[in-house]
């Protein structure tokens, strides 16, 4: 582990371009990945990431070390920008794009890997926004529950409830897609 984020941000405030480069190397990929999970659109995710780092450069001077984790602040800014964009567009309801009850397309073994990936991605993307965000943070980005709750500005209990509902919903939606993968998953 190299220099801490707080030190890097302090160097950014001194117009140290090398520190900017290191922050980008360290966090740009995670921000893009997270935004892509929440938005379901890689191009919009890049726009969000650019806006996030624009704010980093702008606010570096006013950053207070130790008050919050830099990554927490980064994800929170990204999440707010994603939510702004989601509010401006109408999300497709789950049933419009994917019918998990369709027996003709319900068995993963009969589908190409790419098709399974596409259907799982769609199932994840069509979760309610807060469940999807909780899953993107904790499952995909490996953020701890306490930090994820801080990013989403909810209690840890609320975050855990969101995660549990997300997994239960996915289990139900993906069961027709891959019954053999989910055998034994009915016990709830």
């Amino acid at each position, binding site marked *: 582990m190299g220099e801490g984020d707080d030190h890097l941000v302090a160097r950014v405030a001194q117009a140290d*371009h090398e520190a900017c480069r290191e922050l980008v190397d360290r966090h740009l990929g995670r921000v893009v*990945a997270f935004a892509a999970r929440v938005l379901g659109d890689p191009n919009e995710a890049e726009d969000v990431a650019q806006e996030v780092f624009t704010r980093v450069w702008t606010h570096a001077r006013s950053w207070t070390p130790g008050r919050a984790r830099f990554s927490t602040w980064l994800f929170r800014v990204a999440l707010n920008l994603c939510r702004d964009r989601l509010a401006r567009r109408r999300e497709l309801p789950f049933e419009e794009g994917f019918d998990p009850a369709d027996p003709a397309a319900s068995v993963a073994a009969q589908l190409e890997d790419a098709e399974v990936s596409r259907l799982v991605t769609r199932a994840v993307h069509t979760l309610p926004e807060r469940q999807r965000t909780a899953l993107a943070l904790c499952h995909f980005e490996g953020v701890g529950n306490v930090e994820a709750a801080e990013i989403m500005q909810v209690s840890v209990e609320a975050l855990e409830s969101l995660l549990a509902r997300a997994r239960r919903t996915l289990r139900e939606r993906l069961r027709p897609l891959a019954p053999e993968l989910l055998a034994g998953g009915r016990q709830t």
Partner: protein
Amino acid sequence: MTLERLQLLLDVYGCRVDRWPPADRRAAEALLEVSANARTRLAAARRLDALIDRAVAPVVPSQALRERVLAIAPGGGARARTVRWWRSRPALAAAAGGMALAASLALWLMRAPAPGAPLGSDALAQLGVLDVPTDALLSDTTLGVDDTPVFGCDDPALGCDDVPAEPPQRSGQLVLEKEVAA
């Protein structure tokens, strides 16, 4: 640890036991040793997590995005913008076009005929003389401000002798004359 508690932990944290709270982790391990049902639930959670992981991998940030982000970063933005300016095709085209226009203008100026001898004093005096006295149109002051211009013509030579030569009276004046006559 009950089966219900185990299922709740699986729903919240997934099968990655290392993410569980330490106290729950130890209790779950004890339950898993003695309960086949618990092991079945853990296996199902592993399958679900594996399926979720098959969601399309998120995009890797493009090099263009990285350059854009660093171009506006403190301490290096101007340099990056300069580099990008030179690499920009539209900018190069605009620069080439500008240089071509400047060269054409210079060539045209060099090949244009030299100006002749300066104008003499007579020629300069002529420049201030107007052949057409346009202000004469404003010199006829025979009409008063209350007069009404004549409409038509009264010149028989022009074939319009049937047109009354007198100007039409204003309606207010006509009414007044009728009242006086009455």
